[in-house]
């Protein structure tokens, strides 16, 4: 029954992240919600790649057994890197907004309308 646990946690993390983005009013907390969604997707990716009893595909003095193709692990690493870039960009936007508006409250950062 614990086999599905990582998938359930991944889905929970995504839902939690999206909820955070919707209900929090602080821009930095909204970005934290986005980071939660990203963590959930990463967890889903690595748990899909897990094979019980498989060994890492490193050929130097490898033990006997089935090697696991590391595609999803590579995807996860890529997504982590992309996530860092995105979060940095978003946080720098918030910095500029705070400097210009004097607030990071999403209710008050609303000069665009219509």
């Amino acid at each position, binding site marked *: 029954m614990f086999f599905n646990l990582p998938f359930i946690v991944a889905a929970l993390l*995504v839902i939690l992240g999206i909820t955070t983005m919707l209900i929090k009013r602080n821009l930095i907390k909204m970005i934290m919600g986005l980071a939660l969604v990203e963590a959930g*997707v990463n967890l889903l990716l690595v748990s*899909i790649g897990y094979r019980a009893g498989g060994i890492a595909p490193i050929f130097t003095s490898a033990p006997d057994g089935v090697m696991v193709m590391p595609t999803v692990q590579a995807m996860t690493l890529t997504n982590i890197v*992309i996530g860092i870039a995105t979060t940095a960009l*978003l946080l720098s*936007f918030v910095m500029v*907004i705070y*400097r210009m508006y004097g607030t990071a409250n999403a209710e008050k950062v609303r000069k*665009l309308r*219509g």
Partner: protein
Amino acid sequence: MMQELLLQNLPALLLAVPMLGAFVTPLIGRASGGARNLWAVAVMLATLAVAVLLTAQVLSSGTVVYTFGAAAPDLTVPADSGGIPIRIIFAVDAMGAFMALAASLVGLGVMLYSLASATRSTGQNGYYALLLLLVVGILGMVCTGDMFNFFVFLEINSLAGAALVASRVDKGVAVEAGLKYAVLSTLGGLLVLFAIALLYGQYGALNIAVIASRMLFTPLDQIALVMLLVALAMKAGAVPMHFWTPDAYSMAPSSITALLVVASQASLYGVFRVVFTLYGLTLDYATIGWIIIILGVLSMFVGVTMAIPQKDVKRLMAYHAVSQTGYMLLGVGVGLAVLGNQQLLDTYGVIAMEGGIFHIINHAMYKGLLFLTAGAIFYRTGTRNLNQLGGLGHSMKWTMVFFIIGALAIAGIPPFNGFASKLMIYESVFLFNPLLAIIAMVVSILTLASFVKVFHSIFMGPRLPEYADVREVPAPMIIGMALLSLLVILFGVFPQEVVDLLITPAAGALIDQGGYIASVLGGA
């Protein structure tokens, strides 16, 4: 020898040229601004040349497949892999080549225009580098044959786009628009990745052709389809996920807005690729087709009704962009709804799809042109408010001519290109469902009404004292706009030639799922 090497590696060059160009741009910019501008234009010209060559290759010899890192570009399936293409593969069919051509044409116009329009702002090194990176993102999305690769280019597209939207800080308002765009794009990108993970978990592959050949349309696939459609339709700016478009389009520098339109269409291409190539006949095409049609009709109608009361000229044009996206969704959606029925497909389905696809390139041209004219007006007057503008017809004659061309094209008046594609959509959709065609025509009339109003308030009337010293914009901006106007007129005067040359193969490539799979997996 050299030439052969070049022709063999066109799909890789299509990305390598602008990417290298983007990263070298700031280095050259440290030495001299003039050299950097020259370099950026040269890179864009080279990219366009590669895109033209690639399109010619695709049209003459069918889908071009390029395997990265393999001994030869067409060795898609390594001998010892058990029939699975492990490497990243680019599969450029007629549809992808068509999109790449459209993107690089608009890119060149934007680049020329930027030479003058960006001169007043700081941080130009970053501006040109990001502009080229945005082009890389768009070209990558339309060329790749790999789902994860698609996601990576989608993120490049979003990040470069968001940074450019925010680049003219404008007391923080532009940054607010950039933040909105970046947050939504990232969330959309993560949804796409989630869907890719679901597909990989079931089929053990990332290659679009492999997944398509194994597609079973299980409940998990349906969840993945919904996630992909929601995320990509949001990036394409379709109602009801359109709320970021007016903010991002109006606050970005005008040159960038013209390119953002193409970036949105790359996501639209993603929608079409997913439903036609990835899922194809396995999905309930009538239902999904109708969903796309309804999204299209809503986009058309909501977009144009929101556009009419706008006071900010770029915001108004942004809502029209939402509205025009609806035409493309409508045309291609009708094609999807009759996908399984060869007879209906022959009677009107294919023509509807051709109309929708033709509208993509036409929209990129005339909407790009309109945003550039709005930028020209802002460049000289410093305002985008329609109530403050007036009488500019006396001093900005070229801009006025370009604006008229763009406005008539978007309203679907002959002999401009908007008419050609809209006529194809009206005729075929009328056979499918007369009511939809009538809505499409009404929206066109409202569009015309809205642009007559804009034209009148910007250009007509007596010369206003506050704009007494307004002159025509510098030559590079005129050249950029002239390039796009020329294409608008050419495509409008010779629509049949364009359709035969580019559009029919593109629509055929979308429908022919088996051909796409065979070109990658080798007839298996």
